[in-house]
């Protein structure tokens, strides 16, 4: 792969990660959100794949496959099952409405470009220049975590944060050791499974998955 197409491929796949994050924030339909998450996972795997091709790194290639399977298929599939069981699969009332969310997201992207300048200055290279995208994905995911009421949306927000962290890791270190990546991925999978069970219980007991109802549980 020559240099210019490598950079282009990296930019496109990296940019796609952020775009899907923003699309998740835009759509209120949970089913659509899960679809976005799946596409984001695939884009993330593409980033890892492009890096692996460029650096001829077998470990990174295995990581890419791992990311594709866990973040592109298994985790979204599990979420999809949760959503299918819940008939009201629409985010009813986010704490911040969609237009305002998108404006905030724009501000967050600006902030992430501002805070990443120092990191880029440490070692300027095509992958590190994309670090702000990863940081922005983390912040957008976190924002979603804060403003959405439905438990499923919260899981999606958490997975966005995780994808963002993974993206930053790939861009900065060209992939952490395989065993660490394996551990992190399995951790996320575990979180999804636990939350899936928790949600089922919650729906059974409370008849809702609105997290604000949990406020009564305080002491």
């Amino acid at each position, binding site marked *: 792969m020559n240099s210019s197409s490598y950079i282009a491929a990296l930019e496109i796949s990296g940019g796609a990660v952020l775009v899907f994050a923003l699309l998740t924030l835009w759509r209120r339909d949970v089913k659509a959100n899960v679809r976005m998450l799946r596409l984001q996972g695939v884009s993330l795997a593409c980033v890892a794949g492009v890096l692996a091709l460029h650096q001829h790194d077998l470990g990174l290639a295995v990581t890419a496959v791992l990311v594709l399977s866990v973040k592109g298929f298994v985790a979204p599939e599990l979420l999809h099952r949760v959503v299918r069981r819940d008939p009201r699969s629409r985010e009813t009332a986010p704490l911040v409405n969609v237009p305002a969310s998108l404006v905030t997201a724009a501000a967050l992207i600006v902030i992430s470009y501002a*805070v990443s*300048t120092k990191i880029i200055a440490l070692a300027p290279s095509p992958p590190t220049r994309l670090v702000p995208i990863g940081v922005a994905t983390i*912040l957008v995911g976190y924002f979603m975590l804060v*403003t959405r009421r439905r438990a499923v949306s919260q899981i999606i927000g958490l997975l966005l944060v995780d994808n963002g962290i993974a993206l930053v890791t790939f861009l900065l270190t060209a992939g952490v050791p395989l065993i660490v990546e394996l551990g992190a991925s399995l951790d996320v999978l575990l979180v999804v499974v636990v939350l899936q069970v928790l949600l089922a219980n919650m729906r059974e007991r409370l008849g809702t998955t609105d997290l604000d109802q949990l*406020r009564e549980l*305080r002491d």
Partner: protein
Amino acid sequence: MDLALLSLVLCIVGALLALSLNGSVRVVVTGIVGIAACLGALAAALRVLIDGNSVSFHSTLLLPLSGIDLTLDPLGALFVAVTSIVGIASCLYYIGYARDESGSRLSLSMFMLFLLSLLLVPMASSVMTWMFAWEIMALSSMLLITTEHRHSQAARRAALWYGVMTQLGAGSILLGFLIMTLPAHAQTFTLLEQHAGGLTSLERSAAFIFSLIGFASKAGAVPLHVWLPKAHPEAPSPISALMSGSMVALGIYGIIRVGLTLLGGGSLWWWLVVTSLGVASALFGALHATTSTDIKRLLAYSTIDVMGLVLLGVGAAGAMAATHHHEVAHLAMVASLLLIVAHSGFKGCLFLAAGAIERSTGTRNLDQLGGLLSRMRVTAIVFVVATLSVMAVPLFSGFSSEWLLFEGLLGGFISHNSATSIAMLVSVTALALTGGLTAIAFVKAFGIAFLGQPRSSNAEHARDASPTMGVAMFFLCIPSIVLGLAPGSVIPLLNRASDVGLRLHVASPLRPGAGLDLLSSRGSIEPLLILAVGVIASLGLWGLLRLVARGGVRRAAAWSSGRDVLTPRMQYTATSFAEPLQRVFVDVLRPDNDLDVTHESESRYYEQHLAFLNRVDDTIENSIYQPVIKLVRRAGTAALRLQNGSIHRYLALGFIALLVVLVVLT
């Protein structure tokens, strides 16, 4: 070193056995393994003390990154020996003592870990090893204090106080060590000592003060002592004995190791600070000991008092070393070390005896005891020996060590520095006053508990301690008697420890021999001679009385003027015994007196019911610690407003914090 390592391994084996065995076997096996470990450590320590050669051990396997560094030099070996002597008695005593909670898996395994840490701290020769051992010591002893947590709220509170104080202290010590590692870029004590010259004087002082705060708090120095009178009474008695005899002494060890050895003595004012801490602790501890009615609390305050005296000695030694009066420094250091050894013996013994009393009567309150002399013979005998020792009566260990301390402090007058002279003057006065107060406290403890008539039915039906407990208590009497009769026999060992501590090589200030004979010929004591004269004189007196008083002897209750009309209510109580003194020191003690009178409904001139309450709380706790606690509690209540149970709010707080950190950092 092999022997020392073996004993450490034995402690771990003991802890594992305590976790895995069932039933009464558990206590016996763990106790025996503990005794074996202590015997091994004692042998290793004595070998080092007699040869004067240090041994060391390094392994990278045990602690990640830094490895573990152990060195047994004469100074550390002295403390290992002290721990093992108290440890042997505690393990033996525990076999007879353990019951329900105190015999549980958790308590026994923590006991073994505590023993391990007490042996490990004096051997540690790098910062990591030291902090590791120190933390094991703090955590295991904290869990041991909570042994009775199911029944006693006091135990839970004591553990909390202890936990907070010990963690703050450990943090402070760590800070001190961190400053010391600045120039050396290394963490072994040898390298720290070599590079100590690279510190600026401000850094040296900061390092000393931080570590002093931590160590003084462990040693129970006023005003950092608040945990001690709470924690010692609540722990099971063998643990109290170890805590008081050994753990508290490790605080002193820390001051000597860091201040004199690693930082090489430093400035004069450091040691004047240590001396003033000592004066405050000695007086405060002795005063509170006289007014305490809880027997273990009394012993705990007496621990503060004795550790105050040791601090006086260490402070004097440091001050003399800083002004280049090496021989006096040496004398003061030897005196302090002798006092530590003596204290571990008699205070350990007293705590074990107090445990026996508590076991047999179910109370620690002196006002409920009385008449135990005829009911608990063995306990009474050991209590008398230990009491005579703590009161510094000649022929017992307390006397030898305090006499030597007096000589050391008086020697300090040769200093031409007026501040030092004044400090020494105050110290001598404090030492003398403390001696008097301690005598009152222990006359009270023995008189009220063992003499007279029982003040409650529990005391009336008291039974003596089990044989293993008795043997353990007798074992701890040995140091009191040996150090009392032949203090000169251990002086060569203490000399070696003192040489290491002060990093000086001065000839012994004492002539060799069983007694104490100062080279500067200002004074000498030959306890064996005193004993011989005393025995001959009493035999003569006894014979004379037999000759003169030929008539029959009429027996009646003591102090009843020959009439048998005394009731238990007519006796002195612990409270009334201390009352005159409490009146004299009312400004320091600030006792809480409360008289509640209920009148007859017909007339106000007749009382139906009178309730009198007298309580002496710790003034320092009330005036310094309680305001801080109140402030923290108020801050906590204010912070509760942030917490309304909404997950979104918590997430939002996290998100905002993340953004703020990101923006601030760039």
